């Protein structure tokens, strides 16, 4: 074990205030405002509300606006760095949504238009641009995504999974968020006035923030002298409401305490608080209550930059972490632009104007829909700070319960379908999807949320534990397509006069995880991950990094819905598949503490396109040829139809190089083509390991005894993944 410091080796940002770190410092000092009536698209009805629109020239016309913003910030963060980052963790909520909206308006509906639609495509684009061969994770926890990405990167570095990680967030403006927040009446027509007595909502913004994080030993100063570090980070969930924060601020208080504890700091050690401070009545009240509970009468200076640049959604947590570094380096605490008369009911005294002073540590807050909260502590190391130990803990989680949904039903139906008909493809009827849930509780849920909650309740029920899950890790390749389609369709057909607040709130990728949290009152970390066909593997990797040894169970869930209009346009594998299919899987897991059950771990996740040695690297990571053949009786191989040639080539290379003697099951032939097929496969793998046998029909008419060995679940194509179940 050795001590590890998470040093911030580079920062990049682009926002409505400025492009680049130096320009942002100048703009914050000068109290500039980057907010003006929206110009990105014509507002048909109701007058153009002020937004924070980036004025910088975009650099790559071949990709969406969000991807451009991410590239600009990443280039700055990586400037002067010769080596590619080992891993990339990016927060995003809308990805290429603006371009998707434009294509739909123009009637251009060919699937090749939408290859950069998903939030996950931003991180994939950066991996290609900077030749990153390693893991890529996309976090989608709404407005806290950028900060959650930083925490995942920190844990990756602490676990020794990488030495250098590019972490951040990016979101471009689009109609979905503009009209969505407008439908919730959350946009202040006068521009955001955080913490002001007359505040009346947020201002929507766009931008990107990136940090290059490096793991260094305790004594190494690095190239930049005494660098700023991520001292600690924390996550929590309100488990209160899909779109409103807990008014008492309980989740906000928990997350700030968690971050400070992780950093080894007392509240008195915080020199400045960078607020989430959106300007909505509810957020600012909830955050202020938490601040009062945490700091009492010893409140450090605090402010929000969202009145100056707007709320840049997934980018905000990362941009503000970057501003925290500037605060420390420049001694600059930004003012709360837009706030002229602080609301006395909040009991806090925000900086109205910028303040110069010595800053050694900053607590930076980012809260999001679904009650997904994150706090990050940035600082220069003081002698008193404890350094974290690099832990060599196992990434394995113990599976104590599981459930799946396929076209053939739950686990029993799925296995029966495969054994008797050779497949479980198709779409389970709505009435069978959520039979275990009360109609009232799910009246606002569309297909994906129904699946996700039903899976979670069934997996927890299967675990037979009375302990409620505390943490939720959810993954989806495409998010709530029914809600997204419903929202955009109503907007378009009403010539932008009407939209649906319910559909907007349901359209965010983390909505299902929020519902799961509310159902179970799960107030621990609540993380939604999205990365196309590798979403579940990214999610399992994230759970392995973030889940603490608390004894409380956690849920790891992956699901995707088939949507008649969108699935074949967005998902290249669904487009070439003959049978529309959807479903997913859920695992109820624990870490440590004696419960018995199969162990699962995401051991490998690397780029399959820009990494010539990926199969060799996979074999080495799994322990070499001898261990692979000794440990695994069967391989569940996931080859998305859209990259069938590449995937088959990779599988063939693996089987040959590993001289694999066991059974090989290309499972998408059985499950059908959908992004979360691997979540379903993982649940099947768990069942096989528990029973010691692969049932009839999976690889031939007869069952296959595993002889005490485990299952290796491999994913191929643009990424290569390895998950073991033993």
């Amino acid at each position: 074990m050795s001590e590890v410091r998470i040093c911030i080796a580079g920062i990049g940002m682009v926002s409505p205030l400025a492009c680049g770190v130096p320009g942002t410092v100048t703009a914050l000092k000068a109290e500039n405002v980057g907010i003006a009536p929206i110009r990105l698209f014509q507002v048909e009805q109701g007058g153009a509300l002020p937004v924070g629109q980036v004025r910088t020239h975009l650099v790559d016309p071949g990709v969406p606006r969000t991807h451009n913003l991410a590239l600009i910030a990443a280039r700055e963060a990586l400037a002067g760095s010769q080596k590619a980052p080992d891993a990339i963790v990016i927060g995003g909520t809308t990805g290429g949504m603006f371009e998707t909206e434009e294509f739909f308006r123009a009637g251009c509906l060919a699937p090749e238009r939408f290859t950069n639609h998903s939030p996950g495509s931003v991180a994939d684009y950066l991996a290609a641009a900077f030749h990153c061969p390693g893991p890529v994770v996309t976090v989608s926890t709404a407005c806290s995504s950028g900060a959650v990405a930083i925490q995942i990167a920190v844990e990756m570095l602490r676990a020794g999974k990488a030495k250098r990680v590019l972490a951040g967030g990016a979101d471009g403006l689009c109609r979905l968020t503009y009209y969505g927040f407008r439908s919730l009446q959350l946009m202040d027509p006068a521009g955001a006035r955080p913490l002001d007595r007359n505040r009346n909502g947020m201002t929507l913004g766009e931008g990107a923030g990136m940090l290059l994080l490096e793991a260094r030993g305790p004594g190494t100063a690095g190239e930049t002298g005494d660098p700023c570090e991520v001292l600690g980070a924390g996550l929590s969930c309100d488990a209160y409401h899909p779109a409103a924060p807990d008014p008492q601020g309980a989740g906000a208080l928990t997350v700030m305490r968690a971050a400070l504890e992780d950093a080894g700091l007392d509240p008195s050690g915080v020199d400045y608080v960078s607020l989430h401070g959106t300007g909505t009545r509810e957020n600012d009240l909830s955050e202020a209550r938490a601040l009062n509970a945490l700091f009492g009468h010893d409140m450090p200076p605090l402010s929000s930059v969202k009145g100056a640049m707007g709320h840049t959604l997934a980018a905000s947590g990362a941009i503000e972490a970057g501003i925290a570094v500037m605060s420390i380096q420049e001694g600059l605490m930004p003012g709360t632009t837009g706030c002229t008369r602080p609301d006395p009911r909040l009991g806090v005294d925000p900086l109205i104007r910028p303040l110069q002073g010595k800053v050694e540590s900053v607590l930076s807050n980012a809260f999001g829909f679904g009650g997904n909260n994150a706090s990050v502590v940035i600082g220069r190391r003081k002698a008193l700070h404890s350094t974290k130990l690099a832990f060599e803990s196992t990434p394995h989680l113990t599976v104590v319960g599981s459930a799946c949904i396929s076209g053939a039903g739950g686990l029993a139906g799925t296995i029966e379908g495969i054994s008797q008909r050779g497949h479980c493809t198709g779409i389970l009827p709505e009435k069978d999807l959520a039979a275990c849930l009360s109609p009232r509780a799910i009246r606002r849920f569309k297909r994906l949320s129904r699946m996700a909650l039903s899976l979670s309740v069934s997996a927890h029920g299967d675990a037979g534990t009375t302990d409620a899950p505390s943490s939720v890790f959810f993954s989806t390749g495409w998010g709530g397509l029914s809600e997204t389609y419903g929202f955009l369709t109503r907007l378009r057909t009403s010539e932008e006069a009407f939209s649906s607040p319910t559909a907007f709130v349901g359209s965010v990728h983390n909505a299902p995880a929020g519902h799961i949290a509310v159902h179970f009152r799960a107030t621990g970390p609540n993380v939604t991950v999205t990365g196309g066909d590798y979403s579940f593997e990214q999610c399992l990797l994230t759970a392995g990094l973030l889940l603490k040894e608390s004894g409380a169970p956690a849920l790891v869930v992956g699901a995707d819905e088939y949507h008649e209009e969108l699935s074949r346009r967005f998902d290249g594998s669904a487009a070439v598949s003959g049978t529309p299919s959807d479903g997913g899987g859920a695992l109820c897991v624990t870490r440590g503490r004696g419960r018995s059950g199969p162990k699962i771990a995401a051991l490998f996740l690397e780029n399959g396109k820009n990494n010539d040695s990926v199969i060799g690297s996979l074999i080495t990571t799994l322990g070499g040829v001898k261990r692979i053949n000794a440990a695994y009786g069967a391989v569940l191989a996931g080859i998305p139809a859209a990259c069938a040639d590449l995937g088959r080539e990779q599988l063939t290379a693996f089987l040959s190089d590993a001289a694999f003697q066991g059974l090989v099951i290309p499972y998408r032939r059985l499950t059908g083509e959908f992004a979360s097929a691997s979540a379903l496969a993982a649940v099947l793998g768990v069942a096989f390991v528990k029973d010691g046998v692969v049932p009839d029909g999976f690889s031939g008419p007869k069952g296959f005894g595993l002889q005490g060995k485990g299952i290796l679940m491999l994913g191929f194509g643009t990424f290569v993944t390895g998950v073991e179940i033993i």
Partner: protein
Amino acid sequence: MSIMNNMIDELRMKIVETLNLEDVEPEDIGDTDRLLGGDLGVDSIDLLELVMMIEKDYGVRIDNEELATRVFANLETLATYIHEHSAGGSVE
């Protein structure tokens, strides 16, 4: 008075449909039953969804939360507000 009764009946159905209240029959909602925060489980998102429906179907805008809370107190207050504010409408 029958105009108001008809509107209340119409609103009953629209509310059940808009909020997807599968387990509620429209006639179960009394004229003066609390809509917001009552047995129906109507919350802030539902309220905004109803605001959108009222604007779309009756051309009546309700653009702040305070007003919405007042207007959506019950079916009677809602029908009265719509009647008073829809184009050409006035209480007889």
